[in-house]
């Protein structure tokens, strides 16, 4: 399988990465090089093989559903580019 320029733009949109017109052909070449490299996986017979979900066989650990952390909003927002009253600020999303 290979991708065309329209697909490259669609992927970039899904990934929320702006691409310029000049970048598209270059990216298409690189993505197609990767896709042709992984094509050899089609040779493998995977009938009845479980896809791996956990590399070490272990039961999912659970903890009690109680508050164990928090109470320091100024620390939480300390690295944010824009904040007000302990809220993260973003451009307007609803009219």
């Amino acid at each position, binding site marked *: *399988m290979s*991708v065309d320029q329209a*697909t*490259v733009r669609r*992927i*970039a*949109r*899904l*990934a*929320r*990465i*702006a*691409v310029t017109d000049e970048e598209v052909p270059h*990216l298409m*070449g*690189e*993505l197609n*090089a*990767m*896709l042709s*490299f*992984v*094509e*050899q*996986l089609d040779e*493998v017979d*995977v009938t009845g*093989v*479980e*896809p*791996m*979900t*956990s*590399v*070490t066989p*272990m039961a*999912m*650990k659970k*903890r009690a559903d109680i508050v164990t952390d928090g109470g320091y909003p100024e*620390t939480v*927002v*300390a*690295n*944010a*580019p*824009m904040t007000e009253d302990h809220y*993260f600020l*973003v*451009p*307007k*999303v609803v009219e």
Partner: protein
Amino acid sequence: MTDLTHMTLADARDALKARTISSVELTKAHLAAMEVARPLGAYVLETPDQALAMAKASDEKIAKGDAGALEGIPLGIKDLYATKGVRTTACSNILANFVPKYESTVSSQLWRDGAVMLGKLSNDEFAMGSSNESSAFGPAVSPWTPPNWTADKAKSALAGDKKGLLVPGGSSGGSASAVAAGLCLGATATDTGGSIRQPAAFTGTAGIKPTYGRCSRWGIVAFASSLDQAGPIARTVRDTAIMLRSMAGHDPKDTTSVDRAVPDYEAAIGRSVKGMKIGIPKEYRVEGMSAEIDALWTKGADMLRAAGAEIVEISLPHTKYALPAYYIVAPAEASSNLARYDGVRYGVRVPGKDITDMYEKTRAAGFGPEVRRRIMIGTYVLSAGYYDAYYVRAQQIRTLIKQDFEKAYAAGVDAVLTPATPSPAFGIGEKSGADPVEMYLNDVFTVTVNMAGLPGLAVPAGLSAEGLPLGLQLIGRPFDEETLFSLGEVIEQAAGRTTLPTRWWA
């Protein structure tokens, strides 16, 4: 007087304990060496004030007879580890101004045991790379000079565009460069596809990627969560064993960390390997492998045989599919993990006309080309209609790769011996062509280990005909790092300690 920056971690520890040196002296010697070595680009941030304060505290503890296992030992920390109050960037512009309010579990355990932080070490951006060339701070340079280069030639290249000088490998290139150049006694690193073992092999140092779950991933910038694992790079196998004991252990904050006692790894050094069965996988004899690497591999097997181990040929039939399957699984997980860099909660923001425009501009400006490429391929293989064909198939192949190893271990194999890399270190700028796959092939021998979650140790095994370091890799059973340390030290002793480069950069 011995050069304090060229001691092994074990010798420094013993000298500190015997009080023949102080941690302040040791730390000052390293800070001075770091200053002179700045053009190598191993450190992206130096923390001298913190280092000296920690060293002073260590000297007081040693005087009181209250020393921890790493008391007073100066270490470098890969910039992927969150360090409280100390800028942590993952060597990406998107985190250029990020100062964590918390400390990673692994580094906090090092400080608990008395280690001293010298600073933060360079890596490929978000640990994506095999040469340290994708770091937003520019490439880190290996202290090994290219074959037939004079010190003057290397020095002038270092002052210029660095082209032709050797890469230290990646992604933990800063860690490997600093350890080999005498800029710390040991360094933390991380390994997703070979990022500890390949740089160790390129620089004549030792590095271990522990079993998945052995070290907590909490507070380490995530790349591909089912593959990422923390580990040390140091000058000897024993030094890595000492560091791993402090780094490993259960952490309730990482649900994949394993609740299992941490052994005294150093006690495995010098243990007899007599009667151990070592597998030589025939599928690792890949097309185009240099005769030199092949010869090194045979030599390594001979060293283990001479120590009483039994060498057997084994088959790991799905080996060739590990690297392509990795280039589906790792980018898929990366595209998901790196979705958090959106210019809202931390990091750099580029304003836009609406929120989507802000996200897109922020991420286009903040991520370098390799990271953008991997996020995009990951987004593609996870997108509607392609998930089963790519991602599910890759995870099925991952199961087959793991089963290959399980069969070998069930047949009585104690460890597997392979080359660590297909070649010695290459030059800066040499593999930055249009085809990204050329760079990826560096990890052909190491990536299987991440896919199967196993421990892997890279040990220096000699020099190439041109005088560059070469490494061998030992792969173990899950949680049997001890066997790797015992075998690794046998190779290290038989090969003779690699003499590290002299300070041509000074």
